[in-house]
């Protein structure tokens, strides 16, 4: 039981160290180009809370693949036109 608990703490520690997302997006500008769509309107269309759209726009949260596709579909764009993956310079 002890090694499992310690492994858990190490895993949690690593996650907190890694932190920043490498996925950027253009959702904010796309919303404005789409008749100044509000965060709440986008959230309603993709089935999440407004808080989640705020977190994605601030790049504090990388959405699931399904949610990313749903967001791209709202703007009638491909996934790469909405999201971009940036390589970690360390690796």
């Amino acid at each position, binding site marked *: 039981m*002890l090694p499992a608990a310690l492994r858990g703490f190490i895993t*949690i520690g690593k*996650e907190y160290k890694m*932190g920043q997302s490498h996925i950027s997006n253009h959702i904010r500008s796309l919303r404005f180009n789409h008749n100044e769509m509000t965060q709440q309107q986008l959230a309603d269309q993709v089935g*999440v*809370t407004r*808080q989640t759209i705020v977190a994605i726009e601030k790049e504090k949260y*990388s959405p699931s693949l399904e949610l990313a596709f749903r967001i791209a579909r709202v703007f009638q764009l491909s996934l790469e036109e909405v999201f971009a993956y940036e390589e970690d310079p360390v690796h």
Partner: protein
Amino acid sequence: MSYQEKKNIVSLISTILIFGSYCGAVYVRYYDANLAGAELFRFWGAVILILIPVTIVAKVIIEIVFIIINRIATKEMEPSFADELDKLIELKAMRMSYFVFILGFLLAMGSLVLQMTPSVMFVILIFSGFISDVASSVTRLYHYRKGV
């Protein structure tokens, strides 16, 4: 500040207040009680069994009061569902809570190995339950503020 952040701050404060008040009440009432043997285990069993429903009821009441006050003050509605971000944060909070409690449980068992009294073991066990609850709220708050 988002609804979830406010809710977690209220949850954190209520956890500390409820646990503090309960422990204070138990201490004031039983600090001079001289319990031993089966009586001692019965006492600690009752302390834990009463703490659980008291915490649940008090937290539900505080949350209802928070929802009403928040609705009046900000006209903000409570999110009607938990989306993928909420579920992910909840899982991380649960995991943190679990590991903190396991650590407390091991410390409690360690106290028995070190021939401390059963009361010390129960105090560590109850306190680790409290700390794990606090850790859960703090983890949720951290992720809602800093991201996942």
